[in-house]
Protein backbone atom coordinates (compact mmCIF):
# COMPACT_ATOMS: atom_id res chain seq x y z
CA UNK A 1 0.00 0.00 0.00
CA UNK A 2 1.40 3.38 -0.99
CA UNK A 3 2.06 5.90 1.79
CA UNK A 4 -0.81 8.30 2.19
CA UNK A 5 -0.14 11.89 1.16
CA UNK A 6 -3.28 13.21 2.77
CA UNK A 7 -2.39 16.00 5.17
CA UNK A 8 -4.33 18.54 7.19
CA UNK A 9 -4.65 22.12 6.01
CA UNK A 10 -2.41 23.20 8.92
CA UNK A 11 0.36 20.77 7.94
CA UNK A 12 0.36 22.11 4.40
CA UNK A 13 0.22 25.76 5.47
CA UNK A 14 3.26 25.19 7.72
CA UNK A 15 5.41 24.75 4.58
CA UNK A 16 4.91 28.34 3.45
CA UNK A 17 6.93 31.37 4.50
CA UNK A 18 7.32 34.99 3.43
CA UNK A 19 9.16 35.69 0.19
CA UNK A 20 8.57 32.32 -1.47
CA UNK A 21 7.95 31.75 -5.17
CA UNK A 22 4.61 29.96 -5.53
CA UNK A 23 2.94 28.71 -8.72
CA UNK A 24 -0.83 28.64 -8.53
CA UNK A 25 -2.97 26.67 -10.98
CA UNK A 26 -6.17 27.90 -12.54
CA UNK A 27 -7.59 30.17 -15.21
CA UNK A 28 -9.68 33.08 -13.90
CA UNK A 29 -9.92 31.13 -10.63
CA UNK A 30 -11.45 28.09 -12.36
CA UNK A 31 -9.22 25.20 -11.36
CA UNK A 32 -7.57 27.34 -8.69
CA UNK A 33 -7.23 26.10 -5.11
CA UNK A 34 -9.46 28.94 -3.92
CA UNK A 35 -10.16 27.70 -0.38
CA UNK A 36 -6.48 26.99 0.18
CA UNK A 37 -5.57 30.49 -1.08
CA UNK A 38 -7.99 32.02 1.42
CA UNK A 39 -6.49 30.00 4.29
CA UNK A 40 -2.94 30.83 3.19
CA UNK A 41 -3.70 34.55 3.08
CA UNK A 42 -5.17 34.31 6.57
CA UNK A 43 -1.80 33.14 7.90
CA UNK A 44 -0.54 36.68 7.21
CA UNK A 45 2.01 35.58 4.58
CA UNK A 46 3.76 38.40 2.67
CA UNK A 47 6.16 39.24 -0.15
CA UNK A 48 5.21 36.30 -2.37
CA UNK A 49 6.30 35.90 -5.97
CA UNK A 50 3.29 34.39 -7.68
CA UNK A 51 3.44 32.59 -11.01
CA UNK A 52 -0.02 32.03 -12.49
CA UNK A 53 -1.88 32.47 -15.73
CA UNK A 54 -3.76 35.49 -14.44
CA UNK A 55 -4.43 37.51 -11.29
CA UNK A 56 -7.91 36.11 -10.68
CA UNK A 57 -10.29 38.94 -10.01
CA UNK A 58 -10.49 41.86 -7.61
CA UNK A 59 -12.54 39.95 -5.06
CA UNK A 60 -10.79 38.42 -2.09
CA UNK A 61 -10.96 35.08 -3.79
CA UNK A 62 -8.43 32.68 -5.28
CA UNK A 63 -5.22 34.13 -6.72
CA UNK A 64 -6.66 37.64 -6.49
CA UNK A 65 -6.60 37.32 -2.70
CA UNK A 66 -2.84 37.77 -2.63
CA UNK A 67 -3.03 40.81 -4.92
CA UNK A 68 -5.93 42.59 -3.23
CA UNK A 69 -4.43 42.05 0.23
CA UNK A 70 -0.96 43.12 -0.96
CA UNK A 71 0.65 39.82 -0.08
CA UNK A 72 2.57 39.56 -3.37
CA UNK A 73 5.47 41.72 -4.52
CA UNK A 74 6.00 39.98 -7.85
CA UNK A 75 3.59 38.47 -10.32
CA UNK A 76 4.45 36.53 -13.47
CA UNK A 77 1.30 36.06 -15.57
CA UNK A 78 -0.10 36.27 -19.10
CA UNK A 79 -3.17 38.40 -18.42
CA UNK A 80 -4.05 40.68 -15.51
CA UNK A 81 -6.90 42.70 -17.06
CA UNK A 82 -9.68 41.09 -15.02
CA UNK A 83 -8.15 42.31 -11.77
CA UNK A 84 -7.90 46.14 -11.82
CA UNK A 85 -6.04 46.12 -8.50
CA UNK A 86 -2.98 44.82 -10.35
CA UNK A 87 -2.66 48.03 -12.38
CA UNK A 88 -3.18 50.12 -9.28
CA UNK A 89 -0.41 48.33 -7.35
CA UNK A 90 1.90 48.53 -10.39
CA UNK A 91 1.39 52.31 -10.47
CA UNK A 92 2.09 52.53 -6.74
CA UNK A 93 5.31 50.64 -7.37
CA UNK A 94 4.55 47.87 -4.87
CA UNK A 95 3.92 45.05 -7.35
CA UNK A 96 6.36 44.07 -10.09
CA UNK A 97 4.52 42.39 -12.96
CA UNK A 98 6.13 40.34 -15.71
CA UNK A 99 3.76 39.63 -18.60
CA UNK A 100 4.45 36.49 -20.60
CA UNK A 101 2.44 35.22 -23.60
CA UNK A 102 0.19 32.42 -22.35
CA UNK A 103 1.61 29.72 -24.58
CA UNK A 104 5.13 30.76 -23.61
CA UNK A 105 4.27 30.77 -19.91
CA UNK A 106 2.98 27.22 -20.00
CA UNK A 107 5.94 26.04 -22.08
CA UNK A 108 8.43 27.66 -19.67
CA UNK A 109 6.75 25.86 -16.76
CA UNK A 110 6.71 22.64 -18.78
CA UNK A 111 10.47 23.01 -19.38
CA UNK A 112 10.98 23.56 -15.67
CA UNK A 113 9.16 20.35 -14.85
CA UNK A 114 10.41 18.15 -17.67
CA UNK A 115 14.13 18.63 -17.41
CA UNK A 116 14.50 20.84 -20.47
CA UNK A 117 16.89 23.76 -20.72
CA UNK A 118 14.42 25.95 -22.57
CA UNK A 119 12.14 26.11 -25.55
CA UNK A 120 12.25 27.92 -28.90
CA UNK A 121 8.99 29.66 -29.74
CA UNK A 122 8.05 31.94 -32.63
CA UNK A 123 5.61 33.75 -30.33
CA UNK A 124 6.77 37.23 -29.38
CA UNK A 125 9.43 37.66 -32.07
CA UNK A 126 9.47 41.33 -33.10
CA UNK A 127 7.47 42.46 -30.04
CA UNK A 128 8.12 43.73 -26.51
CA UNK A 129 8.06 40.08 -25.39
CA UNK A 130 11.41 39.62 -27.16
CA UNK A 131 13.24 42.20 -25.06
CA UNK A 132 16.43 40.82 -23.56
CA UNK A 133 15.93 37.41 -25.15
CA UNK A 134 18.18 35.48 -27.47
CA UNK A 135 16.82 35.02 -31.00
CA UNK A 136 17.77 31.72 -32.62
CA UNK A 137 17.12 30.98 -36.28
CA UNK A 138 16.16 27.42 -37.20
CA UNK A 139 15.38 26.50 -40.79
CA UNK A 140 15.13 30.17 -41.75
CA UNK A 141 12.58 31.07 -39.08
CA UNK A 142 13.34 33.16 -35.98
CA UNK A 143 12.49 31.86 -32.52
CA UNK A 144 12.90 33.24 -29.01
CA UNK A 145 14.82 31.17 -26.51
CA UNK A 146 12.54 30.97 -23.48
CA UNK A 147 14.01 29.66 -20.26
CA UNK A 148 12.53 27.19 -17.74
CA UNK A 149 10.39 28.44 -14.89
CA UNK A 150 10.19 26.67 -11.53
CA UNK A 151 8.83 27.50 -8.08
CA UNK A 152 9.48 26.47 -4.51
CA UNK A 153 5.85 25.44 -4.16
CA UNK A 154 3.18 24.56 -6.71
CA UNK A 155 -0.30 25.00 -5.33
CA UNK A 156 -2.78 23.25 -7.58
CA UNK A 157 -6.30 21.91 -7.63
CA UNK A 158 -7.56 18.48 -8.63
CA UNK A 159 -11.08 17.13 -8.96
CA UNK A 160 -10.26 13.70 -7.54
CA UNK A 161 -7.13 12.41 -5.85
CA UNK A 162 -6.38 9.01 -4.42
CA UNK A 163 -4.58 8.81 -1.09
CA UNK A 164 -1.30 8.11 -2.89
CA UNK A 165 -1.59 11.41 -4.80
CA UNK A 166 -2.70 10.35 -8.29
CA UNK A 167 -4.77 13.19 -9.73
CA UNK A 168 -7.74 13.56 -12.05
CA UNK A 169 -8.86 16.96 -13.31
CA UNK A 170 -12.22 17.99 -14.68
CA UNK A 171 -13.33 20.04 -17.72
CA UNK A 172 -11.63 23.44 -18.04
CA UNK A 173 -10.34 23.23 -14.46
CA UNK A 174 -7.34 21.37 -15.89
CA UNK A 175 -5.54 24.31 -17.51
CA UNK A 176 -2.13 24.97 -15.86
CA UNK A 177 -2.49 22.39 -13.06
CA UNK A 178 -0.90 19.28 -14.64
CA UNK A 179 2.07 21.29 -15.91
CA UNK A 180 2.67 23.07 -12.60
CA UNK A 181 2.47 19.72 -10.78
CA UNK A 182 5.87 18.92 -12.26
CA UNK A 183 7.68 22.23 -11.86
CA UNK A 184 8.11 22.88 -8.12
CA UNK A 185 10.15 21.55 -5.22
CA UNK A 186 6.97 20.92 -3.24
CA UNK A 187 3.59 20.15 -4.81
CA UNK A 188 0.48 20.74 -2.71
CA UNK A 189 -2.92 19.74 -4.06
CA UNK A 190 -6.33 20.96 -2.99
CA UNK A 191 -8.60 18.02 -3.85
CA UNK A 192 -12.37 18.19 -4.14
CA UNK A 193 -12.68 14.49 -3.45
CA UNK A 194 -10.24 11.89 -2.09
CA UNK A 195 -10.64 8.19 -2.86
CA UNK A 196 -8.75 5.04 -1.88
CA UNK A 197 -5.89 3.71 -3.98
CA UNK A 198 -7.33 1.53 -6.72
CA UNK A 199 -10.49 3.52 -7.18
CA UNK A 200 -9.15 5.76 -9.96
CA UNK A 201 -9.08 4.38 -13.49
CA UNK A 202 -5.36 4.43 -14.40
CA UNK A 203 -6.26 5.71 -17.86
CA UNK A 204 -7.93 8.76 -16.32
CA UNK A 205 -5.01 9.77 -14.07
CA UNK A 206 -3.44 12.91 -15.52
CA UNK A 207 -0.80 13.62 -12.85
CA UNK A 208 1.08 10.59 -11.45
CA UNK A 209 1.36 10.37 -7.66
CA UNK A 210 5.15 10.58 -7.95
CA UNK A 211 4.84 14.30 -8.72
CA UNK A 212 2.66 15.07 -5.70
CA UNK A 213 3.82 15.71 -2.12
CA UNK A 214 0.70 16.67 -0.19
CA UNK A 215 -3.05 16.34 -0.78
CA UNK A 216 -5.42 18.50 1.23
CA UNK A 217 -9.11 17.59 0.98
CA UNK A 218 -11.03 20.90 0.89
Amino acid at each position, binding site marked *: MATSKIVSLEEALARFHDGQTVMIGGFTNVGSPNQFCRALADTGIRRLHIIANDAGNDWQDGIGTFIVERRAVRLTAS*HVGLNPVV*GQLMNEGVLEVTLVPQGTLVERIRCGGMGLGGVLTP*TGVGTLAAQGKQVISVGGRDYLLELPLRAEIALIKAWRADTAGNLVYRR*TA*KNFNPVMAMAADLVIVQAEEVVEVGELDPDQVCTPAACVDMVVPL
Partner: protein
Amino acid sequence: MEHRERIARRAARFFRDGGLVNLGIGLPTQVVNYIPEGIHVQLQSENGFIGIGPIPDADGWDHDVVNAGGRPASILPGGCTFDSAMSFGLIRGGHVDATVLGALEVDQEGNLANWIIPGRKVPGMGGGMDLVVGARLVIVAMEHCTKAGAPKILRRCTLPLTAPHSVDYIVTELCVLHYNGAGLILEELAPGITVEEVRTKTQAELILPEQIGRME
Protein backbone atom coordinates in the same frame (compact mmCIF):
# COMPACT_ATOMS: atom_id res chain seq x y z
CA MET B 1 -27.37 46.18 -42.13
CA GLU B 2 -25.75 47.24 -38.91
CA HIS B 3 -21.93 47.66 -39.07
CA ARG B 4 -21.02 44.96 -36.64
CA GLU B 5 -23.33 42.44 -38.26
CA ARG B 6 -21.90 43.18 -41.70
CA ILE B 7 -18.37 42.62 -40.39
CA ALA B 8 -19.25 39.42 -38.53
CA ARG B 9 -21.14 38.00 -41.54
CA ARG B 10 -18.24 38.56 -43.90
CA ALA B 11 -15.63 37.21 -41.48
CA ALA B 12 -17.64 34.00 -41.07
CA ARG B 13 -17.36 33.34 -44.80
CA PHE B 14 -13.63 32.69 -44.50
CA PHE B 15 -14.22 29.44 -42.60
CA ARG B 16 -13.89 26.12 -44.34
CA ASP B 17 -15.96 23.10 -43.47
CA GLY B 18 -14.41 20.98 -40.73
CA GLY B 19 -12.10 23.74 -39.55
CA LEU B 20 -10.97 24.52 -36.02
CA VAL B 21 -11.49 28.19 -35.23
CA ASN B 22 -10.64 30.52 -32.35
CA LEU B 23 -12.67 33.69 -31.87
CA GLY B 24 -11.51 36.67 -29.82
CA ILE B 25 -13.74 38.54 -27.42
CA GLY B 26 -16.17 41.28 -28.45
CA LEU B 27 -17.21 41.56 -32.11
CA PRO B 28 -15.25 38.42 -33.15
CA THR B 29 -17.38 36.32 -30.77
CA GLN B 30 -20.47 37.31 -32.80
CA VAL B 31 -19.01 35.70 -35.94
CA VAL B 32 -20.30 32.35 -34.67
CA ASN B 33 -23.88 33.53 -35.34
CA TYR B 34 -23.27 33.96 -39.09
CA ILE B 35 -21.49 30.81 -40.20
CA PRO B 36 -22.90 29.91 -43.63
CA GLU B 37 -25.16 26.91 -44.01
CA GLY B 38 -23.29 23.73 -44.82
CA ILE B 39 -20.12 24.89 -43.09
CA HIS B 40 -19.38 23.24 -39.77
CA VAL B 41 -16.53 24.42 -37.63
CA GLN B 42 -15.42 23.60 -34.12
CA LEU B 43 -14.52 26.44 -31.81
CA GLN B 44 -11.47 26.32 -29.59
CA SER B 45 -11.23 28.09 -26.25
CA GLU B 46 -7.61 28.67 -25.25
CA ASN B 47 -8.21 27.86 -21.58
CA GLY B 48 -8.49 24.26 -22.70
CA PHE B 49 -11.36 22.91 -24.76
CA ILE B 50 -12.78 22.38 -28.23
CA GLY B 51 -16.52 22.58 -28.88
CA ILE B 52 -17.75 25.87 -27.41
CA GLY B 53 -21.52 25.59 -26.99
CA PRO B 54 -24.25 28.06 -26.08
CA ILE B 55 -23.89 30.23 -22.98
CA PRO B 56 -25.63 28.25 -20.21
CA ASP B 57 -28.23 29.77 -17.90
CA ALA B 58 -27.28 30.11 -14.23
CA ASP B 59 -29.03 26.86 -13.23
CA GLY B 60 -27.47 24.75 -15.95
CA TRP B 61 -23.91 26.07 -15.61
CA ASP B 62 -21.20 23.55 -14.78
CA HIS B 63 -18.81 25.71 -12.76
CA ASP B 64 -15.79 23.87 -14.16
CA VAL B 65 -16.58 25.17 -17.66
CA VAL B 66 -15.68 28.74 -18.59
CA ASN B 67 -14.54 30.42 -21.80
CA ALA B 68 -11.25 32.24 -22.37
CA GLY B 69 -12.77 35.35 -20.78
CA GLY B 70 -13.61 33.42 -17.61
CA ARG B 71 -17.35 33.58 -18.37
CA PRO B 72 -19.78 30.62 -18.06
CA ALA B 73 -19.60 28.34 -21.09
CA SER B 74 -20.69 24.90 -22.24
CA ILE B 75 -19.08 22.08 -24.21
CA LEU B 76 -20.93 20.61 -27.20
CA PRO B 77 -21.19 16.86 -27.81
CA GLY B 78 -17.99 15.84 -29.61
CA GLY B 79 -15.96 18.41 -27.73
CA CYS B 80 -12.94 17.67 -25.58
CA THR B 81 -10.88 19.25 -22.81
CA PHE B 82 -7.13 19.47 -22.36
CA ASP B 83 -4.47 21.33 -20.41
CA SER B 84 -2.90 24.66 -21.37
CA ALA B 85 0.20 23.06 -22.93
CA MET B 86 -1.97 21.12 -25.38
CA SER B 87 -4.16 24.15 -25.97
CA PHE B 88 -1.22 26.28 -27.06
CA GLY B 89 0.38 23.37 -28.88
CA LEU B 90 -2.76 23.32 -31.02
CA ILE B 91 -2.49 27.06 -31.56
CA ARG B 92 1.24 27.42 -32.25
CA GLY B 93 1.44 24.10 -34.08
CA GLY B 94 -0.82 25.23 -36.91
CA HIS B 95 -3.78 23.06 -35.91
CA VAL B 96 -6.09 26.06 -35.59
CA ASP B 97 -7.31 26.92 -39.09
CA ALA B 98 -8.44 30.46 -38.43
CA THR B 99 -8.61 33.09 -35.75
CA VAL B 100 -10.77 36.19 -35.78
CA LEU B 101 -9.76 39.02 -33.51
CA GLY B 102 -10.12 42.73 -32.96
CA ALA B 103 -7.40 45.34 -33.29
CA LEU B 104 -6.36 48.71 -31.96
CA GLU B 105 -4.19 49.24 -35.06
CA VAL B 106 -3.22 47.29 -38.17
CA ASP B 107 -0.77 48.44 -40.80
CA GLN B 108 0.21 47.96 -44.44
CA GLU B 109 2.96 45.54 -43.45
CA GLY B 110 0.46 43.14 -41.89
CA ASN B 111 1.45 44.19 -38.38
CA LEU B 112 -1.15 43.97 -35.64
CA ALA B 113 -1.37 45.86 -32.34
CA ASN B 114 -4.16 44.80 -30.01
CA TRP B 115 -2.85 44.13 -26.52
CA ILE B 116 -1.51 47.25 -24.85
CA ILE B 117 -1.83 51.04 -24.69
CA PRO B 118 1.29 51.92 -22.70
CA GLY B 119 0.54 53.94 -19.60
CA ARG B 120 -3.21 53.56 -20.05
CA LYS B 121 -4.21 49.96 -20.49
CA VAL B 122 -1.86 47.12 -19.67
CA PRO B 123 -4.02 43.99 -19.43
CA GLY B 124 -1.39 41.59 -20.77
CA MET B 125 -1.28 39.70 -24.04
CA GLY B 126 -2.92 36.52 -22.74
CA GLY B 127 -3.01 34.06 -25.63
CA GLY B 128 -3.18 36.72 -28.35
CA MET B 129 0.45 36.65 -29.46
CA ASP B 130 0.40 32.86 -29.78
CA LEU B 131 -2.84 32.92 -31.79
CA VAL B 132 -1.65 35.51 -34.27
CA VAL B 133 1.62 33.68 -34.82
CA GLY B 134 0.14 30.19 -34.90
CA ALA B 135 -3.28 30.25 -36.55
CA ARG B 136 -3.15 29.47 -40.27
CA LEU B 137 -5.48 32.32 -41.19
CA VAL B 138 -5.52 35.54 -39.17
CA ILE B 139 -8.61 37.67 -39.73
CA VAL B 140 -8.94 41.07 -38.10
CA ALA B 141 -12.61 42.00 -37.70
CA MET B 142 -13.14 45.56 -36.57
CA GLU B 143 -14.83 48.86 -37.29
CA HIS B 144 -12.81 50.78 -39.86
CA CYS B 145 -12.07 53.84 -37.67
CA THR B 146 -11.93 54.63 -33.96
CA LYS B 147 -15.03 55.99 -32.22
CA ALA B 148 -13.52 59.46 -32.72
CA GLY B 149 -13.22 58.79 -36.46
CA ALA B 150 -9.44 58.35 -36.60
CA PRO B 151 -7.97 55.72 -38.96
CA LYS B 152 -6.98 52.37 -37.42
CA ILE B 153 -5.47 51.01 -40.62
CA LEU B 154 -2.13 52.79 -40.71
CA ARG B 155 1.10 53.02 -42.68
CA ARG B 156 2.86 51.83 -39.54
CA CYS B 157 1.46 50.79 -36.17
CA THR B 158 2.32 53.22 -33.37
CA LEU B 159 1.38 50.88 -30.50
CA PRO B 160 3.50 47.89 -29.41
CA LEU B 161 2.89 44.95 -31.75
CA THR B 162 1.11 41.71 -30.99
CA ALA B 163 3.00 40.17 -33.91
CA PRO B 164 4.67 41.46 -37.06
CA HIS B 165 3.55 40.57 -40.62
CA SER B 166 0.91 38.09 -39.47
CA VAL B 167 -2.46 39.49 -40.55
CA ASP B 168 -4.06 37.86 -43.60
CA TYR B 169 -7.37 39.74 -43.90
CA ILE B 170 -8.96 42.86 -42.44
CA VAL B 171 -12.74 42.97 -42.50
CA THR B 172 -14.48 46.26 -41.70
CA GLU B 173 -17.93 47.69 -42.43
CA LEU B 174 -16.45 49.36 -45.51
CA CYS B 175 -14.23 46.77 -47.13
CA VAL B 176 -12.13 43.62 -47.10
CA LEU B 177 -8.36 44.09 -47.27
CA HIS B 178 -5.89 41.29 -47.93
CA TYR B 179 -2.27 41.44 -46.83
CA ASN B 180 -0.33 39.43 -49.39
CA GLY B 181 3.14 39.83 -47.91
CA ALA B 182 3.85 43.01 -49.89
CA GLY B 183 0.93 45.30 -49.10
CA LEU B 184 -2.79 45.70 -48.50
CA ILE B 185 -4.99 44.84 -51.44
CA LEU B 186 -8.50 46.29 -51.54
CA GLU B 187 -10.35 43.10 -52.44
CA GLU B 188 -13.96 43.96 -51.69
CA LEU B 189 -16.10 47.05 -51.11
CA ALA B 190 -19.32 47.11 -49.13
CA PRO B 191 -22.44 48.06 -51.14
CA GLY B 192 -22.51 51.83 -51.74
CA ILE B 193 -18.94 52.41 -50.59
CA THR B 194 -16.43 53.98 -52.97
CA VAL B 195 -12.67 53.57 -53.21
CA GLU B 196 -12.36 57.26 -52.34
CA GLU B 197 -14.30 56.85 -49.11
CA VAL B 198 -12.10 53.95 -48.02
CA ARG B 199 -8.99 55.93 -48.92
CA THR B 200 -10.17 58.93 -46.90
CA LYS B 201 -10.67 56.75 -43.83
CA THR B 202 -7.48 54.75 -44.23
CA GLN B 203 -3.95 55.99 -43.59
CA ALA B 204 -2.28 52.93 -45.12
CA GLU B 205 -1.47 52.80 -48.82
CA LEU B 206 -3.89 50.51 -50.62
CA ILE B 207 -3.19 48.38 -53.67
CA LEU B 208 -6.09 48.43 -56.13
CA PRO B 209 -6.64 45.25 -58.15
CA GLU B 210 -8.18 45.39 -61.62
CA GLN B 211 -11.43 44.08 -60.24
CA ILE B 212 -12.74 44.91 -56.79
CA GLY B 213 -15.32 42.47 -55.47
CA ARG B 214 -18.55 43.32 -53.72
CA MET B 215 -18.58 42.59 -49.99
CA GLU B 216 -21.61 40.39 -49.34
